[in-house]
């Protein structure tokens, strides 16, 4: 096939993405340079005033920090929970292996809202956990419309990605090395610390960063589980765009979030290069 034919075949897809993706991103960037006056009216400009306003507001620093801490917490919990699952799937010879692997990533194909509804019932004021607590005569706990609920929901929502990333990185884990360690008299826990964990450290790093990036990008879970009382970058962008209608602020916050994600993406590439070398 000739090059010109190749370009011709790619042209419709590239044109569609130019219209529906590149153009909107450029407009977003341009919008972040506009300003809004005190009454909220949009004034076209080429100015960094919106960025200065956001940077000068200590609220945004706190909110931004909260986002990072939340994402780090959710990523850590997701990797801790997914690691044994991935290790089990990697090692098992069970004939259920295929099914169990599908079940581990199946939530990816289920609407995020549907999973949030499940958590609302489990964690809610009249939910499963509080029903169990009251059965034992223990005081009720509040686990929705606050950070605890968002942390739990977010952890679950990024787990399938963490499992996939871990499984993809387990290629370097040669079962014969673990066998050799145990033949030489190493206890299972020692084999894990000295052989399994070091060999899978790269996979853990890659999975953690993926979970972290996805947690920062997540909107549905913080919005619905937080019940309007949890403020992170994603919910701020949404509120600025649809509630306060401050488009320059929404755009500037988006640009800030994208820069954060690019830095993290660069770190992810660096880690996967190192673990591949």
């Amino acid at each position: 096939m000739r090059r010109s034919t190749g370009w011709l075949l790619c042209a419709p897809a590239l044109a569609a993405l130019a219209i529906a993706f590149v153009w909107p991103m450029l407009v977003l960037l341009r919008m972040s340079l506009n300003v809004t006056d005190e009454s909220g009216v949009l004034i076209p400009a080429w100015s960094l005033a919106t960025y200065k306003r956001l940077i000068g507001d200590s609220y945004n620093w706190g909110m931004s920090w909260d986002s990072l801490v939340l994402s780090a917490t959710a990523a850590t919990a997701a990797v801790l929970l997914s690691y044994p699952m991935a290790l089990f799937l990697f090692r098992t010879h069970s004939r259920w292996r295929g099914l169990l692997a599908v079940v581990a990533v199946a939530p990816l194909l289920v609407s995020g809202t549907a999973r949030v509804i499940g958590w609302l019932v489990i964690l809610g004021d009249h939910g499963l956990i509080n029903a169990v607590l009251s059965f034992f005569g223990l005081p009720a706990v509040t686990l929705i419309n606050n950070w605890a609920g968002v942390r739990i929901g977010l952890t679950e929502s990024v787990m399938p990605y963490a499992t996939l990333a871990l499984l993809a990185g387990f290629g370097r884990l040669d079962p014969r090395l673990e066998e050799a360690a145990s033949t030489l008299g190493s206890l299972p826990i020692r084999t894990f610390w000295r052989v399994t964990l070091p060999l899978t450290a790269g996979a853990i790093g890659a999975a953690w960063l993926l979970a972290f990036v996805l947690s920062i990008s997540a909107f549905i879970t913080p919005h619905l589980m937080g019940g309007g009382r949890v403020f992170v970058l994603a919910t701020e962008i949404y509120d600025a765009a649809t509630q306060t209608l401050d488009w320059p602020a929404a755009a500037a916050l988006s640009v800030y979030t994208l820069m954060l994600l690019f830095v993290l993406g660069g770190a992810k590439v660096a880690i996967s290069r190192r673990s591949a070398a």
Partner: protein
Amino acid sequence: MKVTPLLAGIGYAFLLSPLAIVALMSLSDDQYLTFPPHGFSFRWYVALAHNAAMLEAARTSLALAATVALIALLLGVPAAFALARGAAPAVVAGVLAAPLLLPTLVIGLGLLMVLQPLGLVATWPGLALGHLVVVLPFVVRLMMSAFAGLPPEMAEAASTLGARPWRGFVLVTLPMALPGLIASATLAFLVSFDETVISLFLVGPRLVTLPIALFRYTESRTDPLVAALAVVLIVLSATVVLVVDRLAGFTRTIARS
């Protein structure tokens, strides 16, 4: 070592508990989403079947997902073919996958800023364009691996026997890539059917998709209707995935990408 299966079991329990509880609560007989339910019935499924707004949203979502899947295949299959045959630089593949690297929230916001001045918010073209951004990368990626897995000898034989390139592609290559085409169409349909965040910016009072109806309902009310609707969405996705897995090895395709 018996510790790993035990810990893996805990992970699975955590991961699947929200889906299990949604299935249970959809059968609740109560007025609100309280646990444990005081009785079981199908009343919320019946209520769902009589909810005109939800049915309208379901029709919108089905038609939209089918349209978006068709457009994504028409645009994505030629590009994937050229890329798989090395007739276009590999950087094009990277460009076509780029939207998956950005948060859908930011993509949706950008689309809102472009489409609002054009009066295309809350219209079919606007929604379809928004969904296409996240659906097209999946189609290109799946079809590239489908085309790359085909033996080139067959297409060469067709060409030796005098078939023009276009005829060889339609009569030889495309039928051999059918499992990949089915998998791509399915994934495209599912991604569009479940898409929530981009749609949030592009729907309007007169044009609402099913995930948005579920999202808005969850924001404001908590009765078992949302659980019933969630189960319908889950069963639909699962059925499509299982059927296609039988036909085309869908999960293998996903696992490879």
